[in-house]
Every structure is written in structure tokens, then in C-alpha cells.
């Protein structure tokens, strides 16, 4: 019966339904786009963020003063439960690099244990030219993508060539000064991006023993700690912090915790966006209320007839609510695929930005990581069903008042209504 009434007022019903469609489309569009975006960020974090790698740095005031961690510290950390590898890092600032007439700039010099270092970042590190060092000499070096290409398309040095590095030192007497050292280049890295505080693209890597000799230390500036899996993050971070006398002495960078925060923020954004979209649906609800109030007025006499021949108030109420629910259902069922389609289109257009062109190939696993060119919206069954139920719910709630008005009509007065 509700369906019949709606068919009779096709144009009006279409407009009312359109309101619901727009609301549901907005909700589903934003929600599925948000969900797709969230999954991409989560994947990016897992792949590109090494959630299982902790960075240990000397904390607070001690930063930069001197190398803090002993080999004993590193050994101890590597034996903590959940830790698969701990490797020492010397981190210094550098300046210009020279290769004959060419020059380039590196921001960071890292003294690393090549064998361990590549194991920490199996997915991230990939060689563009040359090789990853196997037999390591004192002057074996690797440079990052930006160092190798001071300007896009330009090559600073080929593998096998010697490069001169203007290294920065700090002396209590003379302050900061630079001294040149020459290294043999064996390879350069593909675009690797940043992990923690360090952007690998702007680094030059040298053997840690050489770095220690040059900077006159037996300690390390940082420790990279690889965990069996990210769930050990908290316990290991706590154990490390305890070993160095509590918080403040050392700082442990926990990417998993950061990732969790980002995910929380993204969920909040997603819910927030959907809430805004829900306003559209509320407006649609008002439209339903308006149309139904008019409809009840128009059909007063009809309602009177129905009641006179024996329709209960409940029957009349159900009839009108069914009409509202049907509008909501129809709007929801149309709106969900429409919203998903909209999200698809928006995902294609909006996120085709800043895409990395070449895929990265890992040194150890050989797997390729492809850059993101579009967000694939994700529509979960819960969201789809939820949005439809929400649309039906809103319609019924807003239809309630006019429906009750219809149900409560006095049959005699309704029959007299012109």
C-alpha cells in the first residue's frame, strides 16, 4: 500500500528519495575513501616505516655532545627478548662531496656495519648503481640517491671512483672545522626515503670502524634495534630505557606507537567526515518530514475512510512509517553504490600526486615496492549495511511525527475534511 502511494506521487517521492541518496552517497563516499586511505597509510607504515625497528638515541642534554653507547650496551640490547639484531651507528653532519670537478652535498654521514645495517632495512635499501659492500675496506662508501643526483638526471660519481668528503669536526679549542677525507664509492642507493630521523637519500655511508677512528671514539651515537615483530616494541623500549637509568637519559623512537597514533587520528578523521556527511542525511530527513506532513494533510479524508471501515490507528501509523522507511531504504540502496563509485572517481583524481615513478627493488629479498598512484576506496559490509540502516532509521524517525498525526486523526472529523 505504501508502495502504491509512492508510485502515485512519483515526482515528489523521487525528490525526497534523492535527498536521502545524496546523504548516503556522501557518507559512503567519504567513509570508503577514508578507509582506503587508512589502509594505504597503514601499509606504507608497515613497509616504509619498519615498525619493527627501534632507534635508540642519547637523550636530552647529552645529544650531540659525544658518542654515548658502548659496544657493551649494544651487545646487551641485542640479547633482550624479542630483539633479533642491534647495530651501532655513528651519525655526524657533513658538508660538500667532491669528485674531480663535480660536487654534491650530503647532510648526514653514517658510520655503519654494512652487513648488519642492510638486514635492519631489508625492504627499504636498494642499490641503483654499483653494489652493496661485501668485502669491506676502510674507505668503502655508499651514497644516497640525492647525493648521487645533485640535480635530477645528473650523476655525481660512478661506482669505483673516489670521492672526497669535507667532514665536519668539533674541537673544544677551535670550534667547528672541516677536513677532507677520500673514500672509494662502491654503490649508490635508490630513493629510500626517511626512517626515523634520517633521510637515507641525503646520506653517505662509511664503515663504522673508520668513522670511530676519524671521530676518535669507541662508542656509538645511535643503536638501531630490530625486533622479531612490532608487538615487542613496548617491552624492549622499556627495557632499554631502564638499562640507561630511566626516561630522559636515552630516547627510544618507537614507530609502532607512532603508527598507532596516526591510525587513531585517521579513524577519527574518517568518523568526523562521515558525521559531517550525516548532516546531509538529516536534511533529507527534514525533507521527508515535510513531504509526509503535506501528504497526511492531503490524505486526511482518505485516512478517515480507512479508519471508518475498520483500520486501526496502528495500521495507519504503520502505513505511513512504511512509506518513510521505503524512501530511506530506496535512498540507501541507491546511495551506497553511488557513494562507492564517487569514492573510486575521487580516489583516482585526488591522489595521483607526488607519485614515485620507479619501483624499488630490495637488496636482500629482491621484492619490488610499487609507488602509490591512486587510493582504492574500501567499502566494508558494515559501513554499507550501517549506512542503509541509518538512512532507514532517519527516515522513520522524521516520518514518525506526521505518521502519528495521521494515526491519531478522529475518523468523523477526517471524513468531514475537504
Amino acid at each position, binding site marked *: *500500500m505504501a508502495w*502504491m*502511494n509512492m508510485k*502515485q506521487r512519483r515526482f515528489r517521492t523521487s525528490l525526497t528519495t534523492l535527498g536521502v541518496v545524496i546523504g548516503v552517497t556522501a557518507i559512503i563516499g567519504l567513509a570508503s575513501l577514508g578507509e582506503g586511505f587508512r589502509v594505504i597509510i597503514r601499509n606504507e607504515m608497515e613497509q616504509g616505516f619498519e615498525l619493527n625497528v627501534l632507534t635508540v638515541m642519547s637523550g636530552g642534554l647529552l645529544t650531540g655532545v659525544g658518542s654515548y653507547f658502548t659496544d657493551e650496551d649494544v651487545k646487551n640490547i641485542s640479547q633482550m627478548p624479542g630483539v633479533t639484531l642491534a647495530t651501532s651507528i655513528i651519525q655526524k653532519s657533513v658538508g660538500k662531496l667532491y669528485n674531480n670537478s663535480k660536487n654534491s652535498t650530503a647532510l648526514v654521514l653514517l658510520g655503519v656495519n654494512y652487513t648488519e645495517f642492510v638486514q635492519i632495512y631489508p625492504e627499504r635499501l636498494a642499490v641503483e648503481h654499483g653494489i652493496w659492500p661485501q668485502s669491506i675496506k676502510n674507505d668503502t662508501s655508499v651514497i644516497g640517491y640525492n647525493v648521487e643526483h645533485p640535480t635530477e638526471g645528473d650523476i655525481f660519481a660512478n661506482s669505483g671512483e673516489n670521492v672526497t668528503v669535507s667532514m665536519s669536526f668539533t674541537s673544544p679549542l677551535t670550534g667547528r672545522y672541516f677536513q677532507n677525507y677520500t673514500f672509494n664509492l662502491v654503490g649508490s642507493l635508490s630513493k629510500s626515503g626517511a626512517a626515523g630521523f634520517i633521510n637515507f637519500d641525503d646520506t653517505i655511508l662509511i664503515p663504522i670502524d673508520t668513522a670511530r677512528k676519524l671521530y676518535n671514539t669507541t662508542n656509538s651515537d645511535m643503536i638501531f634495534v630490530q625486533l622479531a615483530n612490532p608487538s615487542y616494541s613496548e617491552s624492549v623500549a622499556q627495557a632499554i630505557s631502564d638499562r640507561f637509568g630511566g626516561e630522559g637519559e636515552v630516547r627510544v623512537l618507537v614507530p609502532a606507537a607512532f603508527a598507532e597514533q596516526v591510525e587513531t587520528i585517521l579513524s577519527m578523521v574518517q568518523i568526523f567526515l562521515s558525521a559531517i556527511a550525516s548532516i546531509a542525511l538529516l536534511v533529507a530527513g527534514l525533507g521527508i518530514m515535510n513531504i509526509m506532513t503535506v501528504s497526511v494533510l492531503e490524505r486526511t*479524508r*482518505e485516512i*478517515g*475512510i*480507512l*479508519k*471508518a*471501515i*475498520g*483500520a*486501526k*490507528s*496502528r*495500521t495507519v501509523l504503520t502505513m505511513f512509517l512504511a512509506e518513510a522507511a521505503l524512501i530511506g531504504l530506496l535512498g540507501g540502496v541507491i546511495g551506497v553504490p553511488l557513494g562507492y563509485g564517487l569514492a573510486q572517481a575521487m580516489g583516482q583524481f585526488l591522489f595521483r600526486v607526488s607519485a614515485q615513478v620507479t619501483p624499488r627493488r630490495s637488496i636482500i629479498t629482491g621484492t619490488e615496492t610499487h609507488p602509490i598512484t591512486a587510493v582504492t576506496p574500501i567499502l566494508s559490509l558494515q559501513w554499507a549495511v550501517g549506512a542503509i540502516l541509518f538512512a532507514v532509521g532517519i527516515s522513520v524517525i522524521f516520518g514518525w511525527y506526521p505518521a502519528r498525526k495521521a494515526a491519531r486523526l*478522529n*475518523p*468523523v472529523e477526517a*471524513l468531514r475534511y475537504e
Partner: protein
Amino acid sequence: MPVILEAREIEKTYRMGKVLVLALKKVTLEVEQGEFVAIFGPSGSGKSTLLHVLGGLDRPEKGEVCIDGINLSTLNDARLAEVRLRKIGFVFQFFNLLPRLTALRNVELPLTLADVSEKESMQKATDMLELVGLKNRVNHKPTELSGGEQQRVAIARALINDPKILLADEPTGNLDTTTGWEIVRLLKRLNEEKGQTFVVVTHDQSVAETADRMIYLKDGVIQSMKENRGSVHP
């Protein structure tokens, strides 16, 4: 014959602006099964109000109405609607058909409300339309029917649930004389052939005189009751 309808000391007031008007004053009457009763009186005499009260469309301030042994004053609105659905049929002056439904659908309506199956209600409604002489107008909408035809559809609708009593409010009031008499003849035929009990409200004395019994109502008070021979005017 058993009493189908019984009204005792009905009082009903009306609010006209600020003034309360007593529309019915201590109205008492009985209708037996198979009777054809006319309630007759000038306009404003309270006869429509009485019919509404008798049919459970309206509630009196005082007094009781019993239909088929059920005291209507003891029922809540939902139960009252149930009684209207199953025990009472209504025919109105302005036909009161649903304009968007076909004659058949209009007649089926009470069956739909009574949860009768689609198939059964269609069969019953078709038979009923045949009984009132509208076999060929089944799929016409009210706007495609003449006044007399519309009233026949309304009568078919009123009869579809086999009511104990059929209440008609000025059934000829909106029809020309010839058509009006056709309707009266139809009602009389249904009364004689099916034993259907009727209470017809009319201001037309000649229509009233066709009834078995004529109740004259004026100013909300029954003035007289008169038995007739019950023949239809030629």
C-alpha cells in the same frame, strides 16, 4: 428476531465555537436482525451524529451502544476499529471511495485490513461487485464511474466483510432522484434477499417511508417511531 443493535440513553454534545450544543438527548433504540430502519429528520437534527455513534465512529458522552452483544463503550480504540471492520458496514453520502484505487481494490480494502488472502479477497470482491450490478466496471477507478455506480461500489465495500449491520448516511443525498431510487431498491433487495440489517439516515421522507420502521429525529430527540408497510416507491 434477535436484537443486533441496541442504544440506551445516548447523549452527545457538540462544541460550536464556545457554545456546547446538545446533539443527542437520551436517545434509546433497538434494531432487530433483518430489519430495515430509517432515521429521518431535518438537517441538524443530529441524525448523522447518531449514526456515527451507533457505528462506533464516535463515542457518546453518556449512554451505551451494543452491537451483536458487544458493548462499544468498554472497547479501546483498536478493538472498536476491529468491531467496525468485522461487524459494521458504512455507506456515506459522498461515497468515500479511495480515488486512486479501482472499484475492485476499493471493495477489497476491508478484506485486506482483515488479513484475508489476496486470492480469496479478489474472488469475494468480484462476486460482491456482481451482486450490486457492477460486473463490468471492476477495473474502473471512481472518477470513471457515475455517482450511482460509485455508491454501488461503496455498498459492495460495506458488505464485503458480512457485517451484522449496515449503516448508511444519506446514501441518496448526492444522487439524482432516479439514481437515488435505484440505490434504495438495491438496499431493499439486499435486505429482502440476504436478510441484511440496515439503518439508513435520510432527510427524504419518501425514502424513509420505504423502511420497515421510521424513526423521526428532531433536535436530538426521537419524536416518533412508525412501522411501515415497507414497499418501495414506484
